[in-house]
């Protein structure tokens, strides 16, 4: 019999098994586990009667449905034009320094993953970033170090 992860079961029960529920289900599983593993994807496919390759194709389309293991907190630094003009690269460097990781990596304690993303809709207050769902704006290298500090508390 198929082994079914409880996170998948819960998500499918909550949102439904129809095709139109696929995105909410994937979002729910990703939130519960911070990323979607191969077995999550094939479990969702089995539960919803879809093909695994297809669910993989859908999940990989969306930027925030991570398919790689992530830290508990994901930092998304905006790299698009307005933030870029206002020094987004310095913010990235400051974060790399503070977290002792490179872009795309996860800290060894599994607390943070550092990533970039496209415009997050705070262009008038750039540079901006998201940590999980929370936006942070008007960033400076000093300010991001403080923010990271707060999460570390």
């Amino acid at each position, binding site marked *: 019999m198929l082994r079914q992860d409880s996170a998948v079961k819960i998500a499918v029960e909550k949102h439904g098994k129809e095709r139109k529920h696929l995105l909410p289900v994937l979002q729910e599983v990703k939130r519960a586990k911070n990323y979607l593993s191969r077995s999550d994807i094939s479990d969702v496919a089995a539960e919803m009667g879809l093909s695994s390759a297809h669910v993989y194709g859908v999940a990989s389309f*969306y930027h925030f449905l991570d398919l790689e293991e992530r830290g508990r907190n994901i930092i998304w630094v905006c790299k698009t034009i307005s933030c*870029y003009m206002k020094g987004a690269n310095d913010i990235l460097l400051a974060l790399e320094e503070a977290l002792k990781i490179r872009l795309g990596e996860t800290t060894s304690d599994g607390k943070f993953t550092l990533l970039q993303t*496209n415009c997050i809709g705070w262009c008038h207050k750039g540079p901006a970033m998201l940590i999980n769902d929370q936006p942070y704006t008007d960033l400076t290298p000093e300010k991001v170090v403080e923010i990271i500090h707060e999460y570390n508390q």
Partner: protein
Amino acid sequence: MARRKLKRVDLIFSKDCSCRDILADALKKPREEIIRMLIESGLKGRGGAGFPTGAKWKMAAEEESNRKYVICNADEGEPGTFKDREILDRVSLKVLGGMALCSYVTGAREGFIYLRHEYRFLIPKLEKTLDVFHKWMDELDLDFRVSLFMGSGAYVCGEETSLIESMEGKRGEPRNKPPYPTSDGYLGKPTVVNNVETLVYTMMIMRIGAEEFRAMGVEGSSGSKLFSVSGDTPKAGIYEIEMGMTLEDFVKEFGDGDAKAVQVGGASGFCVPRKRFSETHIGYQGGLKGFSLPTGGSMMIFNSSRSMYNVLHNYLDFFEEESCGQCTPCRVGCQQLRKGIEAIKRGEKSHKYLNDLLRLSETMKLTAKCGLGQSVANSFASIVENFREEMIY
């Protein structure tokens, strides 16, 4: 040519009106009357494409179907645009009011707000508003319910057919058109997709009347609109301004005194150099002499310290990632444009290659399947043509 000064407006965020009353009044009018008002107001979609809203609702209203849907497009992803977030944060009841109007007019009983992932922080607040709204619906005896549908990070999902695909549990790849959503939308049913701001204006038109709305702005581009101002400006933020302003007035008001170019409409819009400021208006094509540029509201100012090569490169990076990838001109074209300007910059390709790239961007405009690929040429051609030397040296 007649110069219009920039006129501030306060409709969208004004607190001096009760949404519930506007709605209650409107629901007493016959449906045809509301459609007539919208058509007369000249309101065009504020999501970028500028389709007349009254006509869109009319088409959906005329479809025979047991199910219809209203979708509020809150996938706001155009670089430099942040007005929809602000609207949803501050006056979401007006948005919902607009959806209710649309429900009344078209017969849709279910509505969705397709909210981009980046705005998840708005969820708790929106859920509270939805409770209030649903109570109103019961009181006003309108059989209409709205729920949130979350995006997961894909700019192209702002395109209405890929938004619908995404809601149906698929990859957000734009569909072939026709058919259009007003006849074959969500789950194959007639669907109205409107921008957040458009929906608010439908309510405002109910409040102030079509004539007053039409009196604002210019011929072909009536009313006002929200502008998201960013870049090299001391006054970054959101402003509601009458349609039809010239870039000269805009820069006078918002520039830092050293503006060399304004990007109108975000990465998929046009870059206007200083020498064109006075002859360029903000509005839909055809209304005024000179150049009329439509915009979803993004206004980005670049001063003389900026490298337009870097700006263009940033845009092309954006498109290369955000293209859905299904059609050849856009998927491969975006990569070629980016690699092409890099090769010219490094001296690996002659500056004449810029002409090949311009032709390629024209082909993308003509042949790409959706607005994303079609509009890459807007910024590409306007930047390359106006700042050619910055591309080469």
